[in-house]
């Protein structure tokens, strides 16, 4: 029963697509493939960039002047790398990295060849954002944790990262959206994706409907990502997403008397 409803719906969508975007309907298999390629590039490059960016961003905060483990050499090294790669336009970076990608990954084309340049294009931006997010953690919290005997690792994993979660979610959202933008350029190394689909099939053949649908699809993805990020960031502000209840399981409600803070003798 359910299946038939979904089937009916698919038929209906196909019918609508046929009338609204006849050219896209003609290339629907190619369109689906492109969407898939974009998605693959997005999550693979995104995941790697997330990890590296988080590490690099944390390193920047920790080693900078006034950081919890000041180290000018490490800081300037990380800082310079980030600055250099941030200032290279992505399309140039994509081409510049071709020989290195081939050496490391084995191929410089298709989705596999696009991951590395996407990571290089995302990490510098993301680590800067992480740096800003972590710098937003109040100095006092760090000091309190130090007074309780936390070392560098304790401060990073028990204070900096957990306290910055809402800010980290926000900057991750921004970076994810910019990564979607970058994947559309990956067509330059033959990785396919919605970007090159829109150019090759839409622009080059003057099929306007193809371009329009690509724009709408990317717009929807962006809106979903942004709302997801905003929602999560809000849900984790000043609290954990899932709170572990530790209250005494006595069954009875806690005494309301201690509501007043002047109950002390």
């Amino acid at each position, binding site marked *: 029963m359910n299946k038939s409803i979904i089937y009916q719906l698919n038929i209906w969508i196909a019918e609508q697509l046929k009338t609204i975007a006849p050219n896209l309907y003609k290339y629907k298999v190619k369109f689906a493939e492109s969407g898939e390629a974009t998605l693959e590039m997005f999550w693979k490059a995104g995941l790697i960039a997330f990890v590296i960016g988080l590490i690099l961003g944390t390193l920047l905060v920790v080693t900078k002047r006034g950081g919890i483990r000041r180290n000018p050499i490490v800081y300037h090294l990380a800082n310079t790398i980030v600055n250099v790669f941030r200032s290279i336009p992505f399309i140039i970076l994509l081409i510049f990295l071709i020989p290195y990608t081939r050496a490391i990954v084995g191929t410089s084309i298709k989705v596999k060849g696009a991951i590395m340049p996407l990571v290089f294009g995302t990490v510098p931006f993301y680590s800067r954002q992480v740096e800003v997010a972590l710098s937003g953690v109040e100095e006092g*919290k760090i000091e309190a944790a130090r*007074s309780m*005997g936390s070392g560098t690792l*304790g401060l990073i994993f028990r204070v900096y990262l957990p*306290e910055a979660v809402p800010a980290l979610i926000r900057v991750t959202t921004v970076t994810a959206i910019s990564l979607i933008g970058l994947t559309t350029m990956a067509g330059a190394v033959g990785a396919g994706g919605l970007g090159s689909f829109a150019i090759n099939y839409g622009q080059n053949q003057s099929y306007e409907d193809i371009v329009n649908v690509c724009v709408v699809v990317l717009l929807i993805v962006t809106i979903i990502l942004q709302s997801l990020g905003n929602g999560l960031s809000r849900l984790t502000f*000043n*609290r954990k997403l899932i*709170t572990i209840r530790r209250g005494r399981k006595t069954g009875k409600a806690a005494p309301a008397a201690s509501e007043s803070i*002047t109950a*002390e003798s």
Partner: protein
Amino acid sequence: MIEVQHLNKTFRQKGGQVEALQDVSLCIPDGSIYGVIGYSGAGKSTLVRCLNLLEYPDSGKIRIGGFGEITLIHGKPYVGRRKNHPAESAGADAEPGSAAELTEPTELNDPVEKAVQADGPSLRKMTARQQNTLRRGIGMIFQHFNLLDRSTVYDNIAYSLKYTKRSSREIRERVCELLDLVNLSDKIDAYPSQLSGGQKQRVAIARALAAEPRILLSDEATSALDPDATESILNLLRDVNRKLGITIVLITHEMAVIKAIAERVAVMENGRVVEEGSVYDIFANPQAKITRKFVASSSLLGRLEKLMDEDAELLRIRPGEMLVRMVFEKEYVGQAVITNAARKFGFDLNLILANAEYLHGCPLGGIVGILSGDPEKIREGIAYMAENHVRTEVLRDEQVDHLSAEHLDC
């Protein structure tokens, strides 16, 4: 016992340098509540941060009971045996009760370290681990609470317990115990954002006490609270001090806080301790100008200075009159010394201000008044009062004023 000797600390900034601590030496007895008062920028915050090495003094020594002696050379902490104590250099432990971890001998290869050894025999650089161990033995609370906003009250309090060898069950028990102590048992699952300022500070106190420190540092802990919450937090601190015997070092810019709970107080100005003593003595007999200012700020008699500055009608005196401040010494508040003197020497007292209060069970009182009558008799009366434990201070004397005026005419 916390003992600091000759602490110096200079902050070098772009605009020049700030000498936050200048040759500060203090001795804080075990189990006491010790106040440090000063205006902002006086160095009190730096001093308290130096005690748990959140800040490194440039030079000086810090002795904290149970942790041995920390010597600071060029802004780096060193531990080891004291200089000039050859008897102790034989044994592995410099003193009984000191953490063995801090006094184990290690190999020395570093030339810089060797240079340091010349300065003080058998000193070793304090490792990060040793510093963290030290910090865990000293609790600290702050003006802005500094709780982790994304952790519940439970997790905040359990923070330092995770560094101890406690099972999760023991941690839970300890947290519940602490919540009972600070009277917030029903807030165990609350987040700091759901608490009032006073409640946040209670959680912060519970958190600071979690790892069973012997010392609690309080950095302006009540400065961001309303009067009710301030009182309740001060009561809690006093309880903590009495019940658990924890030494509390309290820094503040409010004399009322010192008056409420401290036993001894150090007054700081421009990185120096300008006056130190029992709170009673400081209140009864402030010496330094800044101390007088602080005392005035929290006492009725303090209004006098303001009235004098304003040249109030109330304080104007006619020829033959004297404006006098009379302060009773500890045990003599209840005695009628002044009226006795007035009767005996035949002068009148026009009462302007009077105040009596209790400080740690000791009465503290004084009177400001205008004495009129025969100047000679008044002087005799003042001498009589001094003999009978009333400190007098002539603030204005019409005769003296006239004399000086005549001198000016010549």
